[in-house]
C-alpha cells in the first residue's frame, strides 16, 4: 500500500506540474492592469533590485534609477540632449552673494504632494536639515556634502529659501540632477515619522512601505516583486499637479511597469518582439538589428542610420596606467600609439558608425560642441608635436567626419545631417610613419620581423584589457589592439569579467584599459566631475584608490592638473562662466598635449521603443526631451506618451 502511495505521489509530481504548466495561456508580463496594454507602459528596468519594497530613498541602499524619474523631485534637472538645466522645483537659477556664502532660490508654486499638501519652503528647510543631521542618510553623499560646507537654510517666504554655506560656488549642484539632485521630503509626513521613531532609531532605519508613499512626482508604487525583477506604478489621481504634469502638460500612461529582463541583450529584443516591452535602454548593435527585424514598429532616436541617441554625457578612452609599463610614462610613446590608430576604421567598421568621434573627454553634443569643440578646433589645427631632430608634425585631421560620412554612404546608409552633426569632430591623423619616428625618438627599435623592441632589446609587449559587457568600449579596445599589432607591437588583448576588470582599475593592475567618462556636466562645468583627479587623492598602484574618495585610476600626479583644479574650484560656474570655461579649455589642452588618455568616441545609447502601444517618445525629429528615462531628468519622456488605442 505504502509503495503504491509513493509511486502515486511521484507520478503526480511528474504529471501535475507538466499539465498545469503547459495548459496555461501564454502570458509574459507579471501583472495585469485594468484596460490592459492600452493603460500600461512597460520599460526596461536597468538593474534587478537588491533591496526591495523600501521607498526610503535617502538611506544607504535606496534604489534611485526610475524611482527618481517617476516619483522624486529636486530644484533643477539636467537635460543631456539640450545641455540646459530645466527649472524643476525652482523657478529660476541660483543666486549667490559675492563671496559664495549665501545662495537664494525661488520655488515653484502649485506643485502638490500626492496627499494634497502643497510643496513649499518648509519642505526644503526640513529636507536639508534632516539630511544634514542624519549620517545614515547617505544617498548620493548629500549628507556629507551639506556637512562639509556647513550648509544652513532659512525660509525667506512661503516659496523662497536662502542657504548659508562655507564659500562654495557650486552648492547648487547638490540640487541639480544629471543623475539625481537632493530629493525633497514631504515635511508634514516625514516629521511625524521622525517623531514616532523608537528609541535608538533614526530615519535611516525607517522603512517606507509602498502604500504609504507621498511624492511630488506623477506615479505611486502599486505592486513590488519581492525578488526585485519588476515594480508596478500607478499614476496619481491629479497628474496635472505633479511637477512633470505642470511642466509638460501631459498626464503620462495610467500604469507604468518597470521590468528587468537580465543583462542579456537578446532577451530584451525577444521581449519587445512579444509586445512585452515598450522601451529598452540599450543593447548591442546585433540585438538592435534583431529588434528591427522582429518588431516592425520599433525604432531608436533616429528612424534610420545611425539610429542611436548620441548625446549621453560620456566618452570612451584608451587609458594608461602611469605606474604600469615605464615606456607609457613617455609622452612620445603615448602619442605614437594615438597616431597608429585609424579612428575612421575604428568608429566605422568596429562601432558601425553609431558613435561620434572626439579627441577629448567631452561628448560632441550640440551644446558642448558650441562651448568646447568649436573653441578647441583652431588650437587643434595648430597643434604640432616634435617627431625628433626638430621635425614638427601637425597631428589633427579635421576631415575625419567627412571620411566617416563617405564610409557610411559606401555602406548604403543615408546620413541624416551634416558629417559633423552625425559623426562628431576631427581626430588624430592615422600616421604610422610619424608613430615610427616617435618610438625611435623614445629609444625603441624594430627587429628583423618588424616587431618593436624596448630600449633593452626585448620584444615590447603591451597589455590591453577590456570588459565585453561594455560593447563599444570592448570593440574600441579590439580595434586598437588590431591596429597596434599591425604596427608591430605585441599586444596582449585581455578580456575580463566586469568585476575583475573594475577591480584591476581600482588597484592599478593594468597597462592600458578601456574606461569611460566625461570631463563635463550637462551645463559644461568640469570641476565637479574631475576634482577627484587632484593629487590629494592619489593612490599608488597596488592600492585601491576609492577609499580616498577621488579618481586615481591613472596613478597620475601632475602639478599642472592640481593648479587648474584649484583655480576651477574658486570660480562660479554660472556667474563667472567665461572664466570657468577658459580654465576648462586650458585643462583640455594640457590633457591632449600630453596625450594622457586616447579618447576615441562618445557614448551612444540604442534606447529603442516600440510604437505598437505607445507613441510620443522623444526622437531626433522631435527632440523635446532626452530619452534617458532612467535619469531623474528623464521623466519628461514618459510624461509625453500617448496610447495608440
Amino acid at each position, binding site marked *: 500500500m505504502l509503495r503504491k502511495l509513493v509511486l502515486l505521489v511521484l507520478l503526480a509530481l511528474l504529471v501535475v506540474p507538466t499539465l498545469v*504548466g503547459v495548459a*496555461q495561456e501564454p502570458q509574459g508580463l507579471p501583472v495585469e492592469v485594468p484596460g490592459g496594454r492600452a493603460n500600461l507602459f512597460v520599460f526596461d528596468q536597468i538593474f534587478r533590485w537588491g533591496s526591495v519594497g523600501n521607498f526610503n530613498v535617502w538611506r544607504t541602499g535606496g534604489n534611485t534609477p526610475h524611482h527618481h524619474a517617476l516619483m522624486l523631485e529636486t530644484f533643477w534637472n539636467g537635460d543631456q540632449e539640450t545641455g540646459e538645466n530645466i527649472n524643476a522645483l525652482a523657478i529660476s537659477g541660483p543666486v549667490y552673494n559675492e563671496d559664495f556664502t549665501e545662495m537664494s532660490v525661488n520655488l515653484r508654486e502649485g506643485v502638490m504632494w500626492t496627499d494634497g499638501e502643497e510643496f513649499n519652503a518648509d519642505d526644503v528647510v526640513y529636507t536639508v536639515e534632516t539630511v544634514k543631521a542624519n549620517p545614515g542618510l*547617505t*544617498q548620493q553623499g548629500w549628507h556629507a556634502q551639506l556637512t*562639509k560646507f556647513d550648509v544652513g537654510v532659512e525660509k525667506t517666504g512661503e516659496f523662497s529659501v536662502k542657504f548659508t554655506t562655507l564659500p562654495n560656488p557650486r552648492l547648487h549642484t547638490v540640487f541639480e540632477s544629471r543623475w539625481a539632485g537632493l530629493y525633497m521630503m514631504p515635511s508634514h509626513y516625514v516629521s511625524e515619522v521622525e517623531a514616532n521613531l523608537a528609541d535608538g532609531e533614526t530615519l535611516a532605519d525607517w522603512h517606507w512601505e509602498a502604500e504609504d508613499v507621498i511624492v511630488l512626482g506623477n506615479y505611486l508604487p502599486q505592486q513590488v516583486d519581492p525578488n526585485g525583477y519588476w515594480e508596478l506604478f500607478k499614476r496619481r489621481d491629479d497628474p496635472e499637479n505633479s511637477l512633470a504634469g505642470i511642466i509638460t502638460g501631459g498626464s503620462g500612461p495610467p500604469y507604468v511597469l518597470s521590468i528587468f*529582463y537580465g543583462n542579456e541583450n537578446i*532577451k530584451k529584443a*525577444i521581449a519587445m518582439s*512579444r509586445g512585452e516591452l515598450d522601451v529598452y535602454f540599450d543593447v548591442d548593435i546585433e540585438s538592435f538589428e534583431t529588434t528591427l527585424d522582429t518588431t516592425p514598429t520599433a525604432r531608436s532616436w533616429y528612424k534610420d542610420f545611425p539610429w542611436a541617441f548620441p548625446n549621453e554625457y560620456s566618452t570612451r578612452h584608451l587609458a594608461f596606467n602611469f605606474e604600469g609599463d615605464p615606456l607609457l610614462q613617455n609622452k612620445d610613446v603615448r602619442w605614437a600609439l594615438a597616431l597608429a590608430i585609424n579612428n575612421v576604421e575604428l568608429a566605422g567598421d568596429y562601432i558601425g558608425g553609431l558613435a561620434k568621434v572626439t579627441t577629448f573627454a567631452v561628448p560632441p553634443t550640440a551644446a558642448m560642441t558650441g562651448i568646447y569643440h568649436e573653441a578647441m578646433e583652431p588650437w587643434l589645427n595648430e597643434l604640432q608635436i616634435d617627431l625628433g631632430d626638430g621635425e614638427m608634425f601637425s597631428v589633427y585631421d579635421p576631415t575625419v567626419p567627412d571620411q566617416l560620412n563617405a564610409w557610411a554612404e559606401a555602406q548604403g546608409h543615408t546620413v541624416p545631417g551634416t558629417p559633423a552633426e552625425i559623426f562628431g569632430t576631427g581626430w588624430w591623423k592615422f600616421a604610422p610613419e610619424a608613430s615610427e619616428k616617435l618610438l625611435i625618438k623614445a629609444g625603441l627599435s624594430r627587429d628583423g620581423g618588424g616587431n618593436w623592441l624596448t630600449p633593452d632589446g626585448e620584444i615590447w609587449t603591451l597589455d590591453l584589457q577590456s570588459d565585453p559587457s561594455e560593447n563599444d568600449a570592448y570593440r574600441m579596445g579590439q580595434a586598437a589592439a588590431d591596429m597596434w599589432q599591425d604596427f608591430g607591437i605585441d599586444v596582449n588583448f585581455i578580456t575580463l569579467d566586469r568585476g575583475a576588470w573594475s577591480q584591476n582599475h581600482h588597484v592599478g593592475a593594468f597597462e592600458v584599459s578601456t574606461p569611460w567618462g566625461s570631463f563635463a556636466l550637462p551645463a559644461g562645468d568640469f570641476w565637479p566631475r574631475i576634482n577627484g583627479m587632484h593629487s590629494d587623492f592619489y593612490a599608488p598602484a597596488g592600492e585601491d584608490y576609492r577609499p580616498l*574618495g577621488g579618481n586615481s585610476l591613472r596613478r597620475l600626479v601632475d602639478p599642472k592638473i592640481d593648479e587648474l583644479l584649484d583655480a576651477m574650484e574658486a570660480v562660479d560656474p554660472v556667474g563667472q562662466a567665461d572664466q570657468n570655461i577658459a580654465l576648462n579649455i586650458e585643462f583640455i589642452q594640457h590633457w591632449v598635449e600630453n596625450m594622457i588618455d586616447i579618447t576615441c568616441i562618445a557614448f551612444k545609447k540604442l534606447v529603442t521603443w516600440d510604437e505598437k502601444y505607445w507613441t510620443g517618445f522623444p526622437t531626433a525629429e522631435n527632440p523635446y526631451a532626452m530619452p534617458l528615462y532612467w535619469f531623474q531628468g528623464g521623466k519628461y519622456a514618459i510624461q509625453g506618451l500617448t496610447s495608440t488605442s
Partner: protein
Amino acid sequence: MTLLKEFILPRFAQWLIVIFVGVTITFIIPRLSPVNPVTETLARMQMYQNIDPEAVQAMRATLLDLYGLEGSVLEQYVNFWKRVLKGDLGPSLASFPLSVNQLIGVSIGWTIGLLGTSILIAWTLGMTLGSLAGYYPNRWWSEGLEKSLITVYPVPYYILAFVLLMAFTFYLPIFPLIGGARGTAAFTWEYISSVLYHGFLPALSIVIGATAHRFIMAKALTTTEKSSDYVQYAQMAALPQRKILFYYVTRNTLLPQVTDLSLSLGALFGGALIAEFVFGYPGIGTTMYTAINNGDYNAIMGITLLSIVGIATASLLIDLIYPLIDPRVRYR
C-alpha cells in the same frame, strides 16, 4: 546505548566539526578578497553621480559603522558566531538594510521548489528508465532511450537551456521570458498555477540533463546486477520479471543512487545559477553571485552556512539510514 555512543554521537560530532571548519573558512576567504563591501557601496553611489571626494571619505566611516565592520577580524568573527547562534545572519551589505535572513528567505523557496522538484523528478525518471533499460537492453524502446539520452548528456547545460529558451519564448512563444510567478505571492490557484507555469521551462532544462545522468548510472548498475547469481537463480525459479527487477535488482542498486539523491538535495542550497540567469528565475544562486561580486560578507556567509549545513546533514542522514536500506551495512 551502544548504538548512540558508538555510532550516532561520533557522526554527530563529525557533523558539528565539518560545519564549524566550513564556516570558519568561509568567514576568512571573502576577507582575503580585494573586494570590499563598503568600497563597492561607495562605487555604486559614484557610478552616475559626482560626489565630492571628501564626502566619500566621510561616508566610508558611516558605512563601516552601519555595516558592523569596525573592529578587528577576530572581534568580527566572535560577533558573527554570537549572531549565528541566535539565528541572526546580520545585515546584507549589498542590499542594506535588508537582513541576510530576509534575503535568503525571499530566494530560498524558489530554489527549493525548482531544484527540489527537478531533482526528484529526474531521479525517479532516470532510475526507473535506467533500470528498465538495463534489464531489457535489447528492446527497441530501451535502445531508443539510451541513444537519445546519451546524445543529450554531453550537451553543456547552458546550451541546452538557451536552446529551450529560444525555442519556447521566441520561435514558439508559449512560456514567459523571466520570473517565478505572476503578481505577488498569494494562496490562490491563479498564483500557484502561475508558479508551475513559470517554473516549467527551467525545470525541464534541469530535468533533461539530470535524467540522462541518472539513466546512465542506473542502467550500468542494473546491467551489473542482472548478471548476479541471485538474479539468475530467481529467473530459473520463474519469478515474475517485474518482481525480479523492482524487488531484487533495483533494490540492490539503490545504495549509490540514494547517496546521489541525498547529496544532490543537500547541495540544492547552492542554487542553480545558470538556470536562474538564463530563465531570469529567482533563487539563491543569483543571490550568492551578487553577494560575491559586491563583497557582501554576511550574505556569502549566510548562504554558505546553509549549503554546508545542507550537505553535512545529508551526509549524516545517509550514514544513519544506510543500514536501513542495505542490511549488509551494519551499525558498528
